[in-house]
C-alpha cells in the first residue's frame, strides 16, 4: 500500500498520547496503594493535558486523510460493522475522558454521584474507565488493519498487539521525560517500564516482520483472471498514465529503500532508546531521556511507513505492466 503521512502521524501521535495516559494512571494507581510516592494533582493534570495534546494532534493529522472532512461526523454512523467507524467514536470518547481526568485533577474537584462522594478515589475510577477506553481505542485502530483479510501482512492479532506495545512504549518513554522535569522520584519507575515495554515491543514487532517475510499470496494471476495456465504475462493494464490503482496500492520504492527503512526503524525504535534511557537514568541526564523519546518517535514514523508499504494488496496482480 502507499503509506499516507496523515495516517502515519495519526496512529503514532495518538499511540504516544494513549501510552502517556496509561503511564500516568499506572503511577497514580501504584501511588494509591502506597507503592510509589504520591504526586501533586498538577503533575497528573499537566501530564494528562500533554496526552490530550497528542491526541488532538493525531486527530488533526487524520483530517488530512479525508477527501471531505466536513462530512466526517457521518463516519460515526456505521459502528455496527465498521472498525473505522468505531475508532471515530472511540477517539473523541478517549479525548473527553482524558480532558475530564485532567480537569478534575487540576481543580481538585470532588463531584458527587447520587449523593455519594468518592473522595480522592474519583480520579482513580475515572482513570480506570479512561484506560479501558484507551485499550478499546487501540483495539479499534488495530482492527481497522487487522480486519482486512486480503491484506495478509495486517491480518493478524500481532497488528493489534504491536499498536498497543509501540504506543505504550513511546508513551512511557515520554512519561519518563516528563517526570524528569516535574517528579524526579518517578524517573526510575517510568524508565524501567519504558525499557520493559520497548523490549517486548521489539520482540513482537520482530515476530510480525518474520511473519511478513514468509507470507505467500493467496491470489495468483491465474485466479485473478481465471485462466489456468502457468505462463501468463500482462501486456497492458488498460491505461498508460497511471490511475488510482497504480497510485494507492504501491509504495513505489525500491527493495533497497524498504530494507533501509526497516533497519532504520529497528535501530531507532528499540536499542537506541533503551540504551539512552538506561544511561540517562544512571547518570541522571535529562537531555539523554529527551533524545530517547525524539529518536524513538522518529523510529516509529519509519516503522509505520514500513507497516503500510509492506502490505501487498491482491489488486496489484492486475497492475504489473503499463
Amino acid at each position: 500500500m502507499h503509506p499516507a503521512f496523515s495516517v502515519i502521524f495519526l496512529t503514532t501521535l495518538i499511540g504516544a498520547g494513549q501510552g502517556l495516559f496509561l503511564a500516568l494512571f499506572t503511577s497514580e494507581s501504584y501511588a494509591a496503594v502506597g507503592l510509589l510516592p504520591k504526586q501533586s494533582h498538577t503533575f497528573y493534570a499537566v501530564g494528562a493535558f500533554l496526552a490530550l495534546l497528542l491526541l488532538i494532534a493525531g486527530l488533526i493529522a487524520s483530517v488530512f486523510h479525508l477527501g471531505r472532512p466536513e462530512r466526517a461526523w457521518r463516519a460515526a454512523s456505521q459502528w455496527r460493522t465498521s472498525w473505522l467507524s468505531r475508532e471515530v467514536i472511540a477517539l473523541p470518547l478517549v479525548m473527553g475522558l482524558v480532558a475530564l481526568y485532567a480537569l478534575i485533577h487540576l481543580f481538585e474537584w470532588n463531584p458527587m454521584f447520587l449523593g455519594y462522594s468518592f473522595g480522592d478515589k474519583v480520579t482513580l475510577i475515572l482513570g480506570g474507565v479512561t484506560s479501558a477506553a484507551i485499550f478499546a481505542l487501540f483495539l479499534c485502530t488495530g482492527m481497522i488493519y487487522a480486519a482486512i483479510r486480503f491484506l495478509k501482512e495486517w491480518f493478524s492479532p500481532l497488528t493489534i498487539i504491536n499498536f498497543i506495545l509501540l504506543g505504550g512504549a513511546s508513551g512511557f518513554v515520554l512519561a519518563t521525560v516528563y517526570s524528569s522535569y516535574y517528579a524526579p522520584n518517578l524517573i526510575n519507575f517510568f524508565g524501567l517500564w519504558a525499557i520493559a515495554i520497548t523490549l517486548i515491543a521489539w520482540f513482537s514487532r520482530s515476530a510480525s516482520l518474520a511473519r511478513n517475510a514468509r507470507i505467500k499470496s493467496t491470489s495468483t494471476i491465474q485466479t485473478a483472471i481465471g485462466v489456468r495456465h502457468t505462463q501468463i504475462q500482462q501486456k497492458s493494464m488498460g491505461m498508460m498514465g497511471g490511475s488510482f490503482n497504480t497510485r494507492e496500492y504501491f509504495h513505489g520504492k525500491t527493495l533497497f529503500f524498504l530494507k533501509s527503512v526497516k533497519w532504520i526503524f529497528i535501530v531507532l525504535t528499540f536499542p537506541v532508546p533503551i540504551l539512552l534511557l538506561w544511561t540517562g537514568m544512571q547518570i541522571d541526564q535529562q537531555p539523554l531521556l529527551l533524545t530517547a523519546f525524539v529518536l524513538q518517535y522518529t523510529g516509529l514514523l519509519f516503522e509505520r511507513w514500513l507497516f503500510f508499504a509492506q502490505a501487498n494488496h491482491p489488486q496489484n496482480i492486475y497492475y504489473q505492466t503499463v
Partner: protein
Amino acid sequence: MTQLALVIDLNVCVGCHACVTSCKEWNTSSEPGPLLDENPYGKDPTGTFFNRVQTYEIGEFPNTETLHFPKSCLHCEDPPCVPVCPTGASYKREKDGIVLVDYDKCIGCKYCTWACPYGAREIDEKQKVMKKCTLCVDRLYDEALPEAERKPACVLACPTSARIYGDVHDPESEVSTAIREEGGYQLMPEWGTKPSNHYLPRRKTRMHIHEDELVRADNPLKQEDIRHETSKEVTLDDWF
C-alpha cells in the same frame, strides 16, 4: 431476489475499449457530475474510470494466445467493501443487488478500496469521493429510454456482444444460461466475495470439415470432364 450483473465473454472480446469509452461518456455526463480527467491531452493522462480493458498473453511463443480482459466492479453478492464503510455511503441495494456509493455521504477515506480485493474502486480526485461502476443504474429503470436501451452503456456499445447483462438469480435468464452452459466463472473465488459478474472462458473454435465436403466425390464437372471419358456412373444431377 434479483441480482443484476454482467457476464463477459472473453472468447469474443477483441479488446477494442468501446465499453471503456462508452462507460466514461455516459457516466461523465450523468447527474453526479463529470468523472475527473487530468492531463487528458498531455503527458501521462490520468483520470477516473469505472471500466478498463487489460491485455494478457498466455503461453510461450509461438504458442501464445492474447486475452483481453475487461475489468470493473463485480457487484459482489457478499461485498467486503460495504461493511467497512464508516459512513454508510457504500451500500448494496436490496432491490437488484447493485453495489453503489452515495456521493453525498462519502467522506473519501478510501477504506473501502483497501477492502476490495479487485481494485474496482477509484477515487475522484476532484470531487474527493469514491466512485465505481454503477451498472448504469441511471439507465436501467429510465422509462424515457426505449426498452432495448435500458441496459448498461458498455453492453450497448460492445461490437462483438461480449457483454451480456441480466439477472444472475433468474435461472432462465440469458446470463444464467450462459454461465451454466458456457462454463462461466468468478474472479478470485478464494476470498468468498461471490462476485455477481461472471466471465466466460476462452474456447477453441474448431471447424470440423469432412474431406467429402472439400472434394465432392460425384462432382458433375469431373463426371463430364471432356478431357476424360464420360463416366458411366449415375451422378447426383441426373436425378433432377
